[in-house]
């Protein structure tokens, strides 16, 4: 893969951020086997602006990096010169508990932020699986990571209320603000959510917060078959229960739907009882004392496997399971499945079989679920696999508009080239 680093020297970068904050890249900095030349840790938004100007002027491809927990997401970079790490930009800029909003620099680790907010009995209402591995807030926004509790609180796009970004040409711009209710100007915070660093560098984010629930309870049911998984999930969705998560676990002998209920003690008693009653008609019910449903992680790719995310209408849960199990068994691949049954997100880890078989399963699932209005995204896979199967799948009528947006924000295409949808 080509890099255009002959135009930039380490000294150029060090003159902006100081000697100790710019270095030659190491092998572990590679993304999908593509090695960058440098890693730089800017200390401020102004640093980022200068670095971006330099990269843009000299045509150097830039990849922003937070905790590095989602670097496998997307296609291999077309080129890569510079990694911009947010590790030094990790401050809580402002938190007024009474306003239930927080403004942070993007490099703050999500777990650190949650710990800080917990001191005021508040939280940022997302629980992405990468949180425990050092994911940063900026990375979660850029990758649009979500977890089980999205059923109740939505995803990060629903909670972000303001953003400061640095564009490819060094322009520093903000949108939104620090009030929850705000319709002044375009909602660029949402546009940048999930844009995987291809529109600009996220420097700061503002979020609305929620009170931390006093207590939690999980009610789970063991299920005999896929049809009952779909039915149990539907029964909860349409009942007078207000769960925080409705989760699916389908791995070997474990086949269950788990319902997480949060709130005040008196409230969750009654709701747990209702949930147990509903789920009891599908199988054996167990009640767990904590938020165990909130702790299931999507299966990863393992050593040489593949991890995918299937998005489908939530009522088609049984169909998602059947199609996954069917294709896997026919092609000799072993699936591990978890998912946010209530919101229509299913994670599948595929191992065993050869690469062709695993690619076959993903392609078959993609064909089925695209037709049904959903999508199948490759979250993690060896670079060789990504050469066979494009990471995002086709995006239909949105492609032209998507390209125009990219071109306006990053006309020279220096930001994460090649990794996102449509090869942009």
């Amino acid at each position: 893969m080509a890099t255009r680093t002959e135009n930039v020297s380490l000294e150029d970068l060090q003159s902006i951020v100081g000697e100790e904050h710019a270095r030659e890249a190491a092998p572990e900095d590679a993304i999908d086997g593509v090695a960058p030349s440098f890693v730089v840790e800017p200390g401020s938004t102004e640093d980022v602006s200068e670095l971006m100007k330099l990269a843009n002027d000299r045509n150097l491809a830039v990849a922003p990096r937070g905790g590095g927990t989602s670097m496998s997401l997307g296609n291999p970079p077309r080129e890569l010169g510079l990694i911009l790490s947010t590790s030094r930009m990790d401050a809580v800029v402002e938190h007024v508990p009474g306003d239930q909003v927080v403004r942070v620099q993007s490099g703050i680790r999500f777990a650190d932020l949650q710990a800080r907010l917990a001191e005021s009995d508040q939280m940022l209402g997302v629980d992405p699986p990468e949180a425990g591995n050092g994911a940063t807030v900026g990375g979660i926004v850029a990758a649009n990571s979500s977890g089980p509790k999205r059923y109740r609180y939505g995803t990060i796009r629903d909670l972000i209320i303001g953003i400061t970004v640095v564009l490819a040409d060094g322009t520093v711009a903000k949108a939104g603000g620090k009030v929850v209710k705000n319709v002044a100007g375009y909602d660029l915070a949402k546009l940048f959510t999930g844009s995987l660093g291809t529109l600009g560098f996220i420097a700061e984010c503002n979020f609305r917060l929620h009170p931390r629930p006093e207590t939690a309870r999980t009610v789970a049911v063991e299920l005999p078959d896929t049809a009952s998984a779909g039915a149990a999930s539907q029964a909860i969705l349409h009942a007078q229960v207000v769960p925080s998560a409705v989760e699916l676990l389908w791995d070997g002998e474990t086949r269950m739907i788990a319902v997480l209920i949060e709130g005040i003690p008196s409230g969750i008693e009654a709701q747990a009882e209702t949930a147990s009653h509903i789920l009891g008609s599908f199988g054996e019910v167990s009640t767990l004392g904590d938020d165990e449903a909130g702790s299931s992680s999507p299966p990863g790719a393992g050593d040489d496997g593949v991890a995918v995310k299937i998005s489908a209408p939530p009522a088609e849960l049984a169909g998602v399971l059947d199609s996954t199990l069917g294709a896997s068994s026919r092609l000799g691949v072993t699936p591990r499945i978890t998912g946010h049954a209530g919101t229509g997100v299913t994670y599948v880890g595929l191992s065993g079989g050869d690469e062709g078989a695993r690619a076959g399963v993903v392609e078959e699932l993609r064909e089925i679920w695209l037709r049904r209005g959903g999508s199948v995204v490759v979250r993690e896979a060896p670079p060789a696999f990504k050469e066979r199967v494009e990471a995002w799948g086709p995006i239909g009528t949105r492609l032209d508009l998507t390209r125009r947006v990219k071109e306006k924000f990053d006309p020279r295409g220096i930001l994460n080239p090649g990794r996102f949808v449509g090869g942009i």
Partner: protein
Amino acid sequence: MQRDLLIREMQAILGPEGVISEREQLRSYECDGLMNYRVIPELVVLPETAEHVQSVVKLCYNEGIPFVARGSGTGLSGGALPVESGVLIVLSRLRRILEVDIPNQRVIVEPGVINIWVSQEVADEGYYYAPDPASQIVSSIGGNLAENSGGVHCLKYGFTTNHVMGAEIVLPDGSMVNVGGGMAPDAPGYELLGAFVGSEGTLGIATKITLRIVRKPEAVRTLLAAFKDTEEAGGAVSGIIGGGIVPAAIEMMDSLCIEAVETAVHPGFPQAGAILIVELDGPAAEVEDQFQHTIRVCEENDASEVRIAEDDEERALFWKGRKAAFAAMGRIANDYYVQDSVVPRTELGAVLKRISELGSEYGMRVANVFHAGDGNLHPLVLYDNDVPGEAEKAEALAGDIVFTCLEHGGSLTGEHGIGEDKKKYMPKMFTTEDLDTMQLLRCAFDPHQICNPGKIFPTPRLCGERPGPFRMHPVQKAGLAENF
């Protein structure tokens, strides 16, 4: 293109019934809910299908004619104000509910469908559509989407943007795209739907909209509490929310507002310096517990009276008083000028105090009714249009209120939008770089700036199609914009 020819071409698409060209008829469309601004459009068209909309937009695009989309015309910032020599595309005939999908908790509608119809359609199934702007019995879903409408219950349930899951959009060049997953979550690619919702009709026209519907809560409890002044009421608001409760709604009215409402709709509100209406909803046991807590907080903050709605009828009466607030101003003043700024909740006390001082300085009355839970103020500056100079004074006072809110870390608008009305204030909240960056998005969607031009941004930027010989854009020629 000549006017006669344009009319004929539009008629060829829509039939004679679908085109309004008589000046007297055009006049009914000269403004939206904000009547301070009036422009008579060249033509009004009434498409009945998405294909009609697409053909009309294509014609406009090919001829370089600006257009403005309009739903029910209830907007309060002039977002649907027509442009001179432009076409007004009225979407009220696209009013079909296309699909109700209870298993997936979705409803697909055309843009002209009225907000309340959605809830009515799914009520028997135990569902409703959560965003409830005060205009919900007349405002359209398309308009709600354009403005990212809020409502009294958005404190807990979020805004339109949190409930729109997908949209079919006719772009300003007449092409049609689908954004958002619709039935399925997390469509790969940019969050174009999130960027589109709230773009005030400047990025295209939604012709099909997928909405999320929500299970009706098991229990709803509502109370009304009276306080000596807005400061004490504000203390109660902080106490309730600080206690970890997310109420479905917390609304505040000051004494002037109570007086107006009492005169207009006689809800029997107590005479007080301020009243709060607090509503909790959710699972019965939880609501009951938190409702008792809420009552205690009101009492601890020296509420002179706490009334509890014993049934749906009484609850409706509380809300009738609240929702009539704007209309009721007519009972105590000939005219009013309303703002929609937002402040961080902890700044409410200081800002209300400043508003009251500003009122005294200007010698004008300001009534306050607002969404206290999210700090969204609706100060109503009362004046008399027949007194020369009063309208200007009212607008100046309203402007000072807006600046006060911005100084306290707030926003220009919480739900009404920038539109025509507040674009002059945008540079007070955003830098040139911020506004130019937003307009990059505009240029990606609408490079020729024909879709609701002149709204939101004080200085429209041209998008500069670089290849080819330079041609000055008519807007630039007129000195109205700079090249980008």
